[in-house]
């Protein structure tokens, strides 16, 4: 294993992504906006930097960027959650009160669903939570394994006025989402039908189900339905640790959902993903404050557990993203960092560069540890024409970032993009890039990739090449946005049609030695890049005090 030292490990801690002060974190839980505060709960081990002893951590924010750590919200103190207060979701009832459904791992490791609610609804901080005396409210039904029944969703209203939830599970190798109706969240009626099922996908964790507008760019409350609405099912695949989603039609009357395109159904390996990098156990909530749907996702580590223990923490949360249906393609979602992230932008520099084939250019932005980059790329028209008129160039519909050699494999029209978190000599670098090939009927086929294979000289790190095809419509330029924050890089292509989050652990490209490069590794294309780079400020994330909260001290 690489001899990590405190200097390197300290640098890895992020500056504007949410993470606890120390120890382990995983799934986002029960996000909501209440009385002026965004609440974020999370799976947290208060005792170590590895998974275990899970409680609900709790933090609040006014803007989803700056956070105050609050006391732990719920701990395993009952037989029905003795082995962990696991993932759950919040629902606002008609009177504005909140109920929280969460999975408990019982004293015998059976997964059951439990009900909790705020002790004092007038408290905007929701500091104290009461567990319902009749817990558990749901136990694994017949035919479902004791350890295959977890992560209840936010409830939505049926046309008959009941509340409906779905819970992920599996039967043999078929991933399923069970459906329950309730009127009081204490007693439930199970549907014999499933919301959805997909063979050979394994256990579905952290199922999410929500509507998206076919016409509007605003988000929708979870209970909204109608002719202008599509419904999204997301499930986290236990087997692969990938979050897959699919878009389809929900039938309220029989509580089922049908995908628009069965060939890219939930969990199918060629199907849609929120993020083609490291992104799991995600959960959305409707932000009634700004009329948008926001997506949280857990970003684990790509280093070893031993390194996590040494640095004393593990995992971050992705920058919250707005999520809407792509109203141009109608085939995918688009995700974009919440607008509040712009409040962290400091000085900026604008660049217009034309770079020929096989060129790497340093971008003079000073230290490049915390950046927000927005870029547009254009391939020289003559080069494009030559390429597409050349009949000897065959269509390449099978190109994949993972298997085609990464950013060093040169093609006619790519790769080109940025190398972030690079050192002066490029011994460490993480290229985020486009690669353009000839697709069917001589159309452009564009993939968006992140290559972490040279991101660090350390050997005890997973260094994949991530990526996917990204739709580029007629008249659109190639665009990308990259958020760089120490050991995390989030890339968004074509306005968020494709996203890639990666964790990288440079050993030389750290502190003041971190550089940014623009590169064009294509053989035949000259590329023009117009981009702006902002230095990013630190977010204010620390334990709360009475002063922070604007409330009188209790002492």
């Amino acid at each position, binding site marked *: 294993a690489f001899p990590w030292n405190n200097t390197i490990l300290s640098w890895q801690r992020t500056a504007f992504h949410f993470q606890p002060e120390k120890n382990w974190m995983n799934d986002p839980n029960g996000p909501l906006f209440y009385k002026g505060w965004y609440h974020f709960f999370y799976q947290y081990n208060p005792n170590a930097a590895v*998974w275990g002893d899970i409680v609900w951590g709790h933090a609040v924010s006014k803007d989803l960027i700056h956070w105050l750590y609050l006391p732990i919200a719920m701990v395993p103190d009952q037989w029905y959650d003795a082995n962990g207060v696991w993932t759950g979701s919040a629902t606002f009832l008609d009177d504005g009160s909140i109920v929280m459904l969460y999975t408990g*791992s019982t004293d015998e490791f059976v997964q059951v669903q439990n009900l909790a609610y705020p002790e004092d609804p007038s408290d905007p901080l929701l500091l104290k939570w009461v567990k319902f005396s009749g817990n558990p409210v749901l136990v694994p039904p017949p035919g479902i394994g004791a350890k295959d029944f977890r992560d209840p969703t936010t409830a939505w209203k049926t046309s008959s006025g009941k509340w409906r939830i779905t819970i992920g599970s599996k039967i043999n190798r078929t991933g399923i989402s069970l459906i329950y109706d309730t009127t009081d969240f204490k007693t439930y009626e199970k549907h014999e039908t499933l919301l959805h099922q997909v063979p050979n996908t394994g256990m579905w964790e952290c199922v999410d189900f929500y509507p998206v507008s076919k016409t509007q760019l605003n988000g929708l409350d979870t209970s909204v339905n109608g002719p202008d609405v599509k419904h999204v099912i997301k499930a986290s695949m*236990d087997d692969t*640790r990938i979050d897959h989603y699919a878009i389809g039609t929900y039938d309220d009357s029989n509580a089922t959902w049908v995908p628009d395109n069965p060939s890219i159904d939930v969990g199918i390996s060629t199907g849609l993903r929120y993020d083609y990098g490291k992104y799991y156990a995600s959960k959305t909530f409707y932000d009634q404050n700004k009329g948008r749907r926001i997506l949280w996702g857990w970003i684990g580590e*790509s280093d*070893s557990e031993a390194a996590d223990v040494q640095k004393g923490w593990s995992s971050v949360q992705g920058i919250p993203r707005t999520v809407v249906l792509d109203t141009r393609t109608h085939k995918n979602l688009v995700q974009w960092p919440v607008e509040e992230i712009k409040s962290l932008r400091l000085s900026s520099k604008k660049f217009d560069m034309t770079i020929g084939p096989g060129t790497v250019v340093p971008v003079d932005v000073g230290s490049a540890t915390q950046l927000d980059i927005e870029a547009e790329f254009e391939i020289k028209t003559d080069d494009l024409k030559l390429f597409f008129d050349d009949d000897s160039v065959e269509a390449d519909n099978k190109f994949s970032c*993972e298997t085609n050699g990464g950013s060093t494999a040169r093609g006619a029209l790519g790769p080109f993009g940025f190398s972030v978190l690079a050192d002066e000599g490029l011994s460490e670098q993480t290229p985020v890039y486009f690669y353009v090939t000839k697709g069917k009927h001589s159309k452009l086929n564009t993939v968006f990739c992140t290559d972490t294979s040279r991101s660090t000289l350390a*050997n005890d790190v*997973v260094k*994949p090449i991530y990526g996917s095809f990204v739709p580029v419509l007629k008249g659109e330029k190639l665009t990308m946005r990259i958020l760089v924050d120490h050991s995390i890089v989030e890339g968004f292509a074509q306005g968020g049609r494709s996203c890639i989050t990666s964790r990288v652990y440079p050993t030389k490209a750290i502190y003041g030695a971190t550089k940014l490069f623009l590169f064009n590794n294509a053989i035949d294309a000259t590329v023009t890049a117009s981009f702006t780079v902002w230095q990013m400020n630190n977010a204010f994330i620390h334990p709360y005090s009475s002063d922070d909260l604007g409330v009188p001290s209790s002492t």
Partner: protein
Amino acid sequence: MASTEALLPVTSLQDPLSESRSDQIPETRRRRPIKVHLAVYSGLLLIALYVTLIVTHDGSKAEIATESRPRMAGVSEKSNDGVWISSDDGKVE
């Protein structure tokens, strides 16, 4: 870790044996060769047992690697350990 503990009782078995050997020093010359043979055979037996335990030790270690704490508790795998070893090949996680 668990397998290290499993080896401890075997190691401790050797101590009583060596003590008994030292106890035999005052015994008669006639009986000494038998004791020596017994000690040698016992030693060989212990070595065989030790080797067997080493094999078992490796096997149990492999089991632990696939059944981590979160897996045993009933949630998805949380760690990359075991994956990063292949990362130098550029394999996808």
